[in-house]
């Protein structure tokens, strides 16, 4: 790590938002650090100031309530979600997604919100959260706003987040709790690897949704399907929005083929 930067660990929201507002693009948020510190080392980002948000009070919370659903905080780690009894009861799909991320010691540090904010097309938490109708609560010194997760991503590693803003929470609504859901991630090896392509499917009892990763510049959501739609219709809808590329990991055609295979298998599981 050659870059020299300053480090601050604010303990209040006001202090955090003040630092972000005064440092502009020179400041970077450090949550789990599993993307940021690697990007700094690789020379992809050159922050003047790194702001650790893990010391801000209440940021590590993972809260569930019947009225509001699940609220994931900025410092909630992937393993916090993976091992949470309420997640396993109400949104087991999220635990399935969490288990596919990297390795055990990376999951101990990496945060769920970091996985979303980094906005990799293959972000493993994205297909499940998209299917479950997650919303993103954004906060800054200027106030708060909320967007649907499907409107949060704007491109490869790009989101609607401005430089002075953070994602303060990802909320998963109570009406998708206990939906049947399943996730498949295609990898080159059984262990720690990025997705070649990934698919999540949920069935609320009436609506079927499909989330797709690594098949477009952003994670994708296919909505408007009924639980009575035949598999061919769901496959056609998924392939209608997917626009994968060929890269060093596999070809466009293989990705399309595996999206179809996964959609068919997952539909059987959630029927």
């Amino acid at each position: 790590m050659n870059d020299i930067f300053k480090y601050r660990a604010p303990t209040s929201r006001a202090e955090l938002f003040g630092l972000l507002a005064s440092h502009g693009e020179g400041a970077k948020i450090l949550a789990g650090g599993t993307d940021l510190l690697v990007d700094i080392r690789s020379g992809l980002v050159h922050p003047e100031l790194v702001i650790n948000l893990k010391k801000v009070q209440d940021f590590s919370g993972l809260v569930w309530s019947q009225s509001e659903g699940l609220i994931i905080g900025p410092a909630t780690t992937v393993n916090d979600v993976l091992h949470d009894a309420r997640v396993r009861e109400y949104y087991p799909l999220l635990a399935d997604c969490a288990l596919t991320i990297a390795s055990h010691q990376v999951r101990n540090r990496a945060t769920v919100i970091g996985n979303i904010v980094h906005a990799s097309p293959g972000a493993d938490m994205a297909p499940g959260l998209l299917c479950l109708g997650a919303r993103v609560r954004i906060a800054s010194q200027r106030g708060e706003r909320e967007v649907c997760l499907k409107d949060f991503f704007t491109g490869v590693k790009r989101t609607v987040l401005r430089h002075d803003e953070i994602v303060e929470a990802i909320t998963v609504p109570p009406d998708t709790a206990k939906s049947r859901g399943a996730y498949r991630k295609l990898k080159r090896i059984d262990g720690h690897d990025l997705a070649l392509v990934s698919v999540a499917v949920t069935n609320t009892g009436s609506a079927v949704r499909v989330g797709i990763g690594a098949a477009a510049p952003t994670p994708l959501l296919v909505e408007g399907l009924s639980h009575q739609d035949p598999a061919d219709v769901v496959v056609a809808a998924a392939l209608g929005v997917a626009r994968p590329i060929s890269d060093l990991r596999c070809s466009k055609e293989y990705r399309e083929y595996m999206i179809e295979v996964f959609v068919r298998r997952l539909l059987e599981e959630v029927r």
Partner: protein
Amino acid sequence: MWMSVEVNGHIYEREVAEHWTLLRFLREDLELTGTKDGCSAGECGACTVMLNGEAANACMVLAAEVDGATIETIESEAVNGELSEIQAAFARNYAVQCGYCTAGMVMSVRELLRHNPKPTVAEIKEGIEGNLCRCTGYQQIIEAVLDVSGQITNETRGGLRYV
């Protein structure tokens, strides 16, 4: 930045460069060189240490972040020259060849056994999936974990296939 951290039972109070990683701090400042630097990107697990009781890649943590934390490194395993039970099981099962991955492997196994004293082969593989070994082979390492958790005998040692 001035910070205080507990490493292997000793409290260290130090001025630390804010851009240093925990890995660099352990190796270059505290001279605890048992923790290895492999990929510096969270892929290989050679730098795995325990941070507040959980395995973490020291290459992806800033030293400044561990202010007030408790760290355990491979140097906490052997006491007065006596290998820990995990280290002894690694030696007994030929689970060390070049040794570069061993420090990180032992730390991952330490956390695994704290949560799960009798892991299955599948659970062991999940526990060490963040630790790459390029020469010993995972078979002997998995057998060492089965051994230290009382699931292997002299008769069954070396019998694990197709891991």
